[in-house]
C-alpha cells in the first residue's frame, strides 16, 4: 500500500485542484495496479509450472496434462489465433476459423507441454512491466540457471472479462505470434486455408501420438 503526503500551503486548495489531483493519482495507481495484476498472473503461471516440473511424484504424462491445463487458463487462444491469422483471417470461412482456432489452441498447449521434456532445473525471474498505448501490458522475464541462463522471455497480456491473459510470448526478441503469422501467410498463399488447417491437425495428431 502506498501513502501520499502533501505540503500545506497558505491558501487552501480548490475543490477542482483536489479533484484533479485525486483523478491523476487514481489514473497513476490504476495503471500501476493493472501492470501489477498482469505481472501477478504471469508469476502465478510460472510458479505453478515450475512446481509441476519439479514434482518427481508425477509421471511425464501427468506433468504434460497439468501444464496444458495451465496453458488453457493463462492464454487467450481466441485472440492468439486471430493474431496469428492476421490478414489471412478473411480468407477462412466461418467453419475454417473455428477449426483453426481449435487446432491452434491444441498446438500451443502441446508446445507448452513439450517444455517439460527439455527442462533442466531452470527458474524464471519475473521483472518489470511495460504498458502499451492500447492498454496491453508486457511482463518482462529472464531464465535463471541452466543452459539458457539469462535468456529473455516476455509475455504480452490483454484483459478478457477483467482477467489478464497472455496473447503473445516473446523469447529472446522472437515473437511466437509473429513467427506463426509468417508461416501461416506462406501456407495460405501457396496452398490455401484448407491445407493450413489440415497441416496443423496432422502436426498435432503426430505430436499427441509421440511418446513423451
Amino acid at each position: 500500500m502506498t501513502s501520499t503526503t502533501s505540503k500545506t500551503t497558505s491558501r487552501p486548495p480548490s475543490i477542482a485542484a483536489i479533484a484533479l489531483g485525486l483523478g491523476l493519482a487514481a489514473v497513476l495507481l490504476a495503471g500501476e495496479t493493472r501492470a501489477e495484476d498482469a505481472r501477478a498472473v504471469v508469476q502465478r503461471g510460472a510458479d505453478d509450472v515450475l512446481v509441476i516440473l519439479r514434482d518427481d511424484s508425477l509421471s511425464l504424462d501427468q506433468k504434460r496434462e497439468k501444464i496444458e491445463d495451465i496453458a488453457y487458463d493463462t492464454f487467450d487462444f481466441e485472440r492468439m489465433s486471430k493474431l496469428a491469422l492476421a490478414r489471412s483471417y478473411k480468407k477462412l470461412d466461418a467453419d475454417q476459423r473455428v477449426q483453426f482456432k481449435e487446432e491452434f489452441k491444441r498446438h500451443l498447449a502441446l508446445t507448452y507441454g513439450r517444455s517439460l521434456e527439455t527442462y533442466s532445473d531452470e527458474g524464471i525471474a519475473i521483472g518489470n512491466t511495460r504498458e502499451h498505448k492500447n492498454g496491453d501490458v508486457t511482463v518482462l522475464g529472464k531464465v535463471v540457471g541452466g543452459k539458457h541462463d539469462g535468456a529473455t522471455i516476455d509475455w504480452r497480456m490483454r484483459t478478457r472479462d477483467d482477467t489478464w491473459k497472455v496473447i503473445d510470448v516473446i523469447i529472446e526478441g522472437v515473437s511466437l505470434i509473429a513467427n506463426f503469422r509468417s508461416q501461416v501467410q506462406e501456407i495460405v498463399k501457396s496452398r490455401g486455408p484448407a491445407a493450413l488447417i489440415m497441416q496443423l491437425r496432422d502436426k498435432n495428431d503426430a505430436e499427441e501420438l509421440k511418446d513423451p
Partner: protein
Amino acid sequence: MRGRTAQRLAVLAAVAALAACSTTRPAVTTEHDPWEPTNRITFRFNDILDETFFEPIAVGWDSLTWEYLRLSIDKAMLNLRFPVRLVGNLTQGELRATGTETSRFVINSTVGVLGFFDPAGHWGIEPRDADFGQSLGIWGIPAGPYLVLPVFGPSNPRDAFGFAVDTVLSAGPSLVSPVAGLVITGVNFVNTRALLLAAVRDAKHISLDYYVFMRNAFVQRRNRQIIGEIPEEEIDDDFYDIEDDE
C-alpha cells in the same frame, strides 16, 4: 611495428567516434526473400548435412560430457570471441560496453581460468554481445535479401560480410597454431550444436514450415540485436490490433 599498431588504434578510435556521433537510423532486416527457391535448396542441404553428421556427433558429445562442462566450454569460446565483441562495440560507439568487455576478458582469462568460468559475470560485469554485421546495420546499411549460407545457415549479404570480418577477427588461435585453431573451431562447433539439440528438435516439432520458421526467427532476432529495445512511442501496436467481435 609500434607505429602501425598506433595507426590501427587511431583508425578504430576515429570509427568509434564517428559511430558515437552517427544519427543514421538502424536498417531494419526484413523477410524479403527473392532467392527463396535457391535458399530452400541450401536450407535442405544444410539440414541433411546436420542430420547426417553434426547432430549425431553432437548427440555423442552430449552423452559423453556433463552439462556443466559443456557450459564451461561455451563460456571459454565466448571469451575467445572477445576481439569480435571489442570491434563490434567500438564500431557501434558503445564505449562503456567496450570497457566492460575488456574488463570481462582480462578477469575471465585470468581469474576465470582462460574463460572457463565467469567471475566477471558474478561480480555484475555483464557482457554485451556485438558483431560487425550488427555494426553495419546500426550504421544504416541495408541487409539485402534473405540468404541461406551453406553450412552456416540464415543470413543476408550484409551479415554474411560481417560474418567474414568476424571470422578474421576471431582467427587469433589459428595464427598462433593452425592445429590449435582447428581443434578450437571443431570443439566450438560440436559443443554449440550439442547445447542446441533440444532447441532444434523443438523448432522442427512446432513449426509448420521449418524454413519460414527459421527465416522469421532470424529476422526478428537480428532486428532486436540491431534496433535494440524499441522506445515505447515507436512500437508498432498495429501488429496486435484485431477486432474482437468478428
